[in-house]
């Protein structure tokens, strides 16, 4: 870990994070890297602000207002009550005024009022309306990349105003003006060119999987397979590409493979759909999101699978659970030929898509999987609810299954489990600080400071209950905490996946 260029916040004495005083501009110096020509052009955006950038911004904003009711209603309905002001982890970690959710919205709202509402046209000073200036546009860029689109603010707003929707709209408009973010847009280009966010080509994937099969067999003596592109397999597993080679992600991939093996089911990965992640969500681009999600539909049709299961990834699960049916017809209830073509192929006895945790928990309940819980006895475990899973999706049949199912799995495979403070889990969970396209080194200060509320809650259970393992179901959470835990004095080895725990305890037969 390089010496930080900024002050790392101090952990508090309790699980909760004190609300800081408002500091104007405390984070205005932090600016994500701007996307270059190649990525912008590939995605069909200009790559620098032209003379007409203002018209482009206002024009695109008008289109977004026509297309998204959320944006229109949210920009109108806010009463500036202030209930959301202390709910964002980036505000709690930085104290920057513009990291209060309502202030983040106001960066757009002041322009909306000026160009799209009557009072803002007549008496801008009265209603906080302002002309669009280059300075405002820069603020958009800076602060719409200090929001992880985690939706925590939307839980607490009396009108359900979701700042994530505004951030997404902001990024979409910035892209149209030629002011994209390097990290997200390069990934968006990579996944469309090569098939996954890491840019891992098919042959490399094949090698990696073969290597993993050898490792597992050496470890356990059981020939657990990692099939790729198998036509006619029952299950297609779509997982974040980080699972293929990042630590600790790969441990969970091994866990999924062992579960499939123990269930005796035929399954496959796809080289065409080797990415569950979908950064189109982060940029608020329906079209990009759809194009990327179509790869999964195509792979499912090509391989003729009956079920689609998704690996551990927060935003990917939100896109899969909440949007795949809309975007690509993966799900049920479509009466159009496009949707039917796929839906008729899928096995109606199972939900589509299915989260790997739902899959594993079903098998546990049926008694199909056997565990040696003591294998996890060196771990004292807590579970971090990923924001996108908690507030943007579900698992199981009942609302809230996204909270109980992963915990049930952990308790089925390990003996020591403690939850963090109630105010910091479930629907109130704090984002890891690296979600929503913020997971890049140029935003390290945002990431470290934004992790503070979670770190305080973790520190409390570490001190009081001796917790030493932070169980996760998200590739971004895993990467973020691995990087950020050391800033707060914890070992990065304390981070891992829920299926890593499954992998440790599962009993396999040949």
């Amino acid at each position: 870990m390089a010496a930080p260029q900024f002050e790392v916040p101090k952990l508090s004495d309790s699980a909760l994070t004190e609300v800081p005083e408002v500091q104007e501009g405390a984070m205005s110096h932090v600016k994500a890297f701007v996307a270059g020509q190649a990525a912008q052009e590939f995605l069909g955006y200009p790559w620098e602000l032209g003379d007409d950038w203002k018209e482009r911004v206002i024009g695109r904003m008008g289109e977004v207002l026509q297309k998204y009711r959320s944006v229109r209603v949210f920009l109108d309905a806010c009463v500036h009550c202030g209930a959301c002001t202390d709910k964002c982890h980036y505000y709690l970690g930085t104290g920057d005024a513009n990291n209060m959710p309502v202030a983040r919205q106001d960066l757009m709202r002041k322009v909306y009022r000026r160009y799209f509402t009557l009072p803002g046209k007549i008496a801008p000073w009265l209603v906080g309306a302002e002309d669009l200036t280059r300075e405002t546009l820069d603020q958009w860029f800076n602060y719409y990349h200090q929001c992880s689109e985690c939706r925590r603010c939307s839980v607490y707003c009396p009108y359900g105003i979701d700042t994530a929707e505004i951030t997404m709209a902001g990024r979409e408009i910035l892209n149209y003006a030629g002011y994209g973010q390097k990290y997200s847009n390069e990934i968006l280009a990579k996944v469309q060119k090569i098939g996954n966010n890491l840019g891992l080509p098919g042959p490399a994937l094949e090698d990696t999987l073969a290597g993993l099969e050898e490792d597992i067999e050496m470890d356990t003596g059981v020939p657990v397979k990692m099939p790729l592109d198998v036509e006619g397999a029952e299950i297609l597993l779509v997982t974040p590409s980080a699972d293929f080679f990042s630590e600790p992600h790969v441990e969970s991939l091994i866990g999924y493979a062992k579960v499939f093996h123990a269930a005796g089911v035929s399954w496959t990965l796809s080289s065409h759909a080797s990415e569950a992640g979908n950064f189109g969500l982060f940029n608020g681009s329906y079209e990009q999101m759809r194009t990327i999600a179509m790869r999964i539909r195509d792979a499912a049709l090509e391989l003729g699978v009956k079920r689609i299961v998704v690996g551990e990834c927060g935003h990917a699960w939100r896109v899969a659970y909440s949007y795949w049916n809309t975007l690509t017809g993966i799900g049920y209830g479509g009466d159009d030929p496009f949707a039917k073509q796929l839906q008729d192929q899928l096995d109606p006895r199972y939900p589509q898509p299915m989260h790997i945790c739902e899959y594993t928990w079903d098998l546990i309940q049926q008694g199909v999987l056997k565990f040696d819980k003591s294998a996890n006895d060196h771990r004292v475990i807590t579970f971090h609810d990923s924001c996108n899973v908690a507030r943007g999706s579900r698992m199981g049949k009942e609302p809230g299954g996204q909270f109980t199912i992963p915990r049930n799995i952990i308790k089925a495979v390990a003996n020591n489990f403690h939850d963090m403070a109630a105010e910091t889990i479930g629907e109130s969970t704090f984002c890891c600080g690296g979600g929503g396209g913020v997971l890049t080194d140029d935003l390290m200060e945002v990431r470290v400071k934004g992790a503070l509320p979670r770190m305080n809650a973790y520190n409390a259970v570490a001190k009081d209950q001796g917790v030493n393992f932070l169980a996760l179901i998200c590739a971004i959470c895993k990467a973020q905490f691995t990087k950020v835990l050391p800033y707060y004095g914890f070992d990065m080895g304390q981070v891992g996946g829920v299926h890593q725990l499954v992998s440790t305890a599962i009993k396999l037969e040949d």
Partner: protein
Amino acid sequence: MSTLAVFYAVLFYVATLVLLGGLAYRIYEYSRTPAPLKIPTTPAPTTRAGVAYRMGREVVLFESLFKSNKWIWVFGWMFHVGLLLVLLRHIRYFQEPVWFWVEIVQPFGMYASFAMVAGLAGLWARRFLVDRVRYISTPSDHLMLALLIGIGLSGMMMTFVSRTDIVALKAFMLGLMTFDFQPLPTDGPLLVHLTLVALLMIIFPVSKLLHAPGVFFSPTRNQTENPREHRHIAPWAAALEKNKP
């Protein structure tokens, strides 16, 4: 009829038209704008009935606000419930005979005005005392509170201090509704009250008061959480499937 009465008659016709026309337009606009993706804040109800129940809790109890901040909740709820009772009480000025339940509400409505103004005062105090709320407050936020408190206080003046000729006022209001114009009493508190109310009606459709219809159109609260079972698709998004499958 005096010039003054004519002025107020015109003012109230205009205010009513702007309020109803403006709100109708907004509601049309909100309902016409699609919500292309399923974005309920989860955990969310999986049935229409569940959604109605969730929305009911939001609108009646301010459930999310309660989770969020007890002070804002107390003041906000006091204000809104007070306002509701006061409005119900006012129905008596627009009908003859008066519905029996409006008679029942009458005494509560009179004292509810205290809750209403106290709630508003609490909300206003927060705009000065809490640094975060001070930072986000715009001039219009302050003026809106001043306007509502002005309406409340001028109304209370008439109820509790210097009574206006309520029979004449009622005749004026009923006259407006039947185009049978009657004279208007001219005492100060009444004219202030009427002016501020008309102003409020006029700015309603272009101000943050749109939170009232807005909450019903908020996709994070009004969507059913069933994306795996139902294919939800907006017309502009369905067109993408036709263009490039």
